[in-house]
């Protein structure tokens, strides 16, 4: 595998921002009541992460180390302002569901930590690839959590899009008396699902490497 492929894969599974690094948990729990919401926010994060990584890696020689954090925050805030103006035009309805979180991308720890750990030291192309990989990993985490919560909580998949699959209306399941679990779309469900997915990731790693990984730092 070339270096760029490794970087992409790294963001998707081994250093998945949500389940392994445990960064930016807030949106992961809050907007994942449906897959569509999670995907929408995920795309916004990919955009902001790629653009900020690119900007910082271009200007890294100009940013004095002592003021680097404020500089990074300003770079991120600028790109968030841009995407915040673009998204309502794309889909006003979905934007309204995740509006607060689009503005809050500024404070997502994953973005600033990638700038600090990677983009501020590496050349342009790997920085962009790393940013893209992390963004895709984040989107993957949101979609996986969203899919589980939506399927169990409201019995649908991809609701709000034109490809909606509605299991709750399936005559076979209804005749069996299967009902959606309301708790899954309640706030508590988000915590439960993420806790169990994290445990599953740990379990898979235990099966492959034979040791329990140290749990994420938690910020």
């Amino acid at each position, binding site marked *: 595998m070339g270096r760029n492929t490794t970087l992409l894969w790294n963001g998707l599974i081994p250093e998945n921002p949500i389940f392994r690094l445990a960064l930016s*948990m807030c949106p992961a729990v809050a907007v994942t009541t449906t897959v569509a919401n999670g995907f929408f926010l995920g795309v916004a994060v990919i955009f902001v992460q790629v653009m900020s990584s690119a900007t910082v890696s271009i200007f890294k020689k100009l940013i004095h180390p002592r003021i680097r954090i404020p500089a990074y925050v300003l770079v991120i805030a600028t790109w968030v*302002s841009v995407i915040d103006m673009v998204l309502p035009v794309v889909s006003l309805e979905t934007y309204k569901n995740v509006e607060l979180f689009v*503005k809050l991308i500024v*404070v997502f720890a994953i973005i600033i930590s990638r700038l600090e750990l990677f983009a501020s030291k590496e050349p342009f192309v790997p920085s962009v690839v790393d940013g893209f990989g992390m963004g895709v990993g984040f989107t993957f985490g949101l979609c996986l959590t969203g899919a589980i919560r939506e399927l169990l909580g409201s019995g649908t998949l991809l609701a709000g899009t034109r490809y909606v699959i509605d299991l709750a209306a399936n005559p076979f399941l209804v005749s069996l008396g299967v009902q959606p679990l309301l708790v899954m779309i309640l706030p*508590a469900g988000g915590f439960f699902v993420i806790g169990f997915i*994290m445990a599953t990731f*740990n*379990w898979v790693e235990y099966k492959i490497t034979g040791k329990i990984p140290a749990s994420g730092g*938690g*910020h």
Partner: protein
Amino acid sequence: MRTTAVLGLLVLLCAVAVGSAFGAVTTGSASFKGDKGIELTFSVPVDDAWAKKPENLVVYEKPDPDIRISPASIAVAPNRTKVTLTFKDALNTAGEYVVEAKDVSSEGKVVGSTEFLVKKGHFQVLFGLFLGASLIANYVFTKFLGLCIFFGVSQKKDTAVGMGATFTLVMVLSAVFCWALFTYVLTPLHLDFLQIIVFIGTVAIFVQFADTVLRKVNPYLFKKLGVYLVLIVTNCIILAVPLENVLKKHGAAESLIFALGAGLGFALALFLMACVREKLEVCRVPAVFKGLPIAFVVAGLFALAFLGFSGLVIF
């Protein structure tokens, strides 16, 4: 003839005088009852038949006199001075409503019209905001903001308390300052779109301030909090509160109380979680659940418990 005319005039004058005297006493008071009802208190007993006619009582929100709201049901108390209007949808209890009572009829006589102004006291509105931000819509357990610090600093009770206090202080200061900046600088200059950048800058200044003060005043706590003190900048709550203040058009006092409620709610969540996690240290947790996964499940249980606060209305 002349005597009759004078007498007639006198009777008429008396009637007008009595009528206007009655008209003066049909005033009363009005208040919200729950979030779907308005209770009117008249100074004279009113007639059932009059009160039950919806067209006699006109209700509207003070800013929009043209949009009439009709009550779903009207109930008159046994002593007939209290009339309760119930509406199908919840009222905006933070706003002001006007109830016009036309041709109030008491003991079969019309005693004049009157107007009621229904609004909550300033204190009630503020208290409602405080409860809403701290318990009913607790930022951690119902809106999932600030999870990074929540899971990071909740391992020990004393650090949790220190973090809660520092966080509340920074939150209140920055929320009020952000509100002032938005109202007196950004809005007059039509620079609303810069709010994200300006707010995060303000928050960063106050975090730096807290960092400097704490380093001198309480070096022990400063060391315990470590990197999380600086990470307050990247805590979602601290940016979400000023943004919500702007979104919901809060005033200065409301912004302050809202930030205080959100900060104390966060401190409460942090403390509760720290209590449980100290106990978890000595429990036998399945190996793959150790650390964060079990913390998430515990937070889920707390979130379920906090659902019990929804629908809490004190006034």
